[in-house]
């Protein structure tokens, strides 16, 4: 399974791309390597000119999506918050051309994002709570050595700048077996993008219009979404929601133990929460027992729909994957599933999942996942997902229940598993992933990065004052 440098990613069939791939940042289209290693770095720009100089030095090292299907390692990506664009001295009319939710930032949209209670920004890690992050740099690679090498390269670009400071360095990496902090294989189902240059994998569905994910192309409604101005700044860019979760492994394990008396029962319950076995095998194709070979096969592990499961007896309506991609499930509300998808780059940090750790210490261990959620309208999409698909259940006939994996559970919350003759309703499900911080970033094209780097002090000041 592990990819080698220069080889085509496995199981992909190529076709002609209609996107300007050399302009688009690699992370938008290129999936994580397997296994993956990497680092997120958050930077603050204290001096506009120093920030632009840094960006100019860094840009030649930022990878484009040209030949993204080649598992070319390692690569780095760069994204900038609204506060960052301000700090870099963007002209006023450019700044004002960004959508409001992006301008005010993720913390200010807590109400719309249902980031309440333990997930409220007042409980976030300090760097996110203060909204100081300006530039986000992410390095992905398939080996620890490569990760270090590319990070050292990024550090070199920083050397000699007094006006750019490092706020946070967060290493991430796949756990043994490529598992997430709750012990599941993840990141399997991604939206297929029209014109990206590869055929959709079996079960991915018809390709979704590129404009839903990359600015400057028609979206599902047939028209491009509005984008930041001037065109060189907006085109081929996109938005990214950065969400850092901390996983309450002890609470999750105790929940499984309290509601399953044997190893088999606990694993089935774990599968019912997600809709997949921990191996990645979908419950639809393996309803009774796990099938690790199926889980490991990218041409089979996503090749299903819910046509034969209209009552949710195999895959509960309220489980994680049926919510995040309902596929052909009949929803209670008029919904276009294809306009609410995001590209997910999940990155796991902290010690590996231990199925036997029932301790409360394991609830606060720094371990979890940082998600990069990519969409040309990431702010609207995240708000929709948080309001409708994650922290509610009415849309899919799950009443007041919430997503069992990433939902914020209220006191006395339940999770229903439809079955014959009567459904099983499990009481007292807890929040298993707590939000520790987040921010919205704009991920500019390569040309836009150069444009920002080359803004001159006078031109930006003149325009800002004019």
């Amino acid at each position, binding site marked *: 399974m592990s990819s080698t440098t220069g080889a085509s990613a496995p199981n992909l069939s190529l076709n002609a791309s209609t996107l300007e791939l050399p302009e688009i940042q690699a992370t938008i289209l290129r999936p994580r390597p397997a296994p993956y290693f990497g680092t997120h770095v958050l930077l603050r720009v204290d001096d506009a000119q120093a920030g632009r100089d840094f960006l100019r030095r860094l840009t030649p090292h930022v990878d484009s999506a040209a030949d993204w299907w080649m598992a070319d390692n390692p690569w780095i990506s760069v994204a900038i918050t609204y506060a960052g664009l301000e700090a870099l001295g963007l002209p006023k009319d450019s700044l004002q051309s960004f959508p409001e939710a992006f301008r005010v930032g993720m913390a200010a949209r807590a109400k719309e994002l249902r980031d309440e209670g333990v997930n409220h920004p007042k409980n976030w890690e300090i760097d996110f709570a203060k909204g100081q992050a300006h530039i986000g740099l992410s390095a992905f690679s398939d080996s620890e050595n490569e990760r270090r090498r590319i990070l050292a390269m990024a550090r070199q670009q920083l050397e000699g700048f007094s006006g750019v400071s490092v706020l946070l360095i967060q290493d991430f990496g796949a756990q043994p077996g490529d598992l997430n902090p709750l012990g599941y294989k993840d990141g399997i189902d991604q939206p297929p993008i029209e014109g990206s240059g590869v055929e959709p994998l079996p079960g991915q569905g018809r390709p979704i219009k590129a404009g839903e994910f990359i600015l400057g192309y028609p979206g599902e409604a047939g028209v491009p979404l509005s984008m930041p101005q001037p065109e060189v700044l907006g085109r081929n860019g996109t938005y990214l929601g950065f969400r850092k979760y901390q996983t309450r492994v002890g609470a999750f394990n105790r929940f499984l133990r309290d509601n399953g008396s044997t190893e088999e029962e606990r694993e089935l319950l774990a599968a019912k929460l997600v809709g997949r076995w921990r191996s990645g095998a979908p419950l639809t194709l393996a309803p009774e027992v796990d099938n690790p070979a199926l889980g490991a096969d990218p041409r089979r592990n996503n090749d299903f729909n819910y046509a034969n499961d209209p009552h949710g007896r195999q895959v509960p309506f309220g489980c994680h994957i049926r919510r995040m991609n309902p596929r052909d499930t009949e929803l209670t509300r008029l919904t276009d599933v294809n*306009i609410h998808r995001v590209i997910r780059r999940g990155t796991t940090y902290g010690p590996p999942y231990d199925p036997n750790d029932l301790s409360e210490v394991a609830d606060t261990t720094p371990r979890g996942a940082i998600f990069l959620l990519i969409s040309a309208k990431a702010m609207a999409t995240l708000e929709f997902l948080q309001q409708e698909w994650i922290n509610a259940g009415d849309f899919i006939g799950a009443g007041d229940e919430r997503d069992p994996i990433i939902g914020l559970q209220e006191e006395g919350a339940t999770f229903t598993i439809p079955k014959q003759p009567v459904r099983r309703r499990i009481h007292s499900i807890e929040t298993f992933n707590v939000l520790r911080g987040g921010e919205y970033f704009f991920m500019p094209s390569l040309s836009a990065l150069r444009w920002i780097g080359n803004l001159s002090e006078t031109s930006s000041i003149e325009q800002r004052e004019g």
Partner: protein
Amino acid sequence: MATQTQSAMESKSNADVAQKIQKLREAFADAPQMAKTALESKIQDLASHMSEPRSRMESAGRTGSRQGKVSELTLMLTFAPGGARRLRALLQAQNGNFDDADKVGTVHDMRFVFLDNDTKLVFATAYDGNWDPYIDDFATKIPDVMDIAFSAFEGWPGIHSPEVKNWIAKHQVTAEGWFVANPNLTVTETRRLEKIGKAVDELLDKVA
């Protein structure tokens, strides 16, 4: 100590009620005698509700009110030239069938009221949750339905316009008063309970 705090709170709340009653009497000072008499005979009743916390009414998204899970949306719109004629023809052709509204799945009711000699319209609806998260779904799923109906009005930017949310919000008038009998029942939940009720009756019929 606790009793003192409690009695202090009670006297504050009594003072609030007395103030509200006084305001109400002032507002009715120039009312017809019939209304004044009616107010006096009802005033103790009203006072008993005034000390209760403000009802479940809260704000729904940008504009409008919500009670529990149900929201209200009232639009005050000006017809474009010929718009009233077109919309009336459309509504009459539909003959009371609103399949598309039914498909939306969140709409409890809708009313189209033509006003001021067919120059204005009040559109009023009760619906579940928020409308703005689903506006993009309308744009890809039922764009024609939206454009046929709403192009009857001045300034409709078209369902695909990024301005469409602002246009709706701009014409929205929040109801000053609004009552919902079942604030926690969505359209979906009502249908589910209807189905369960029937099934239970059938089961009981078999058992009996």
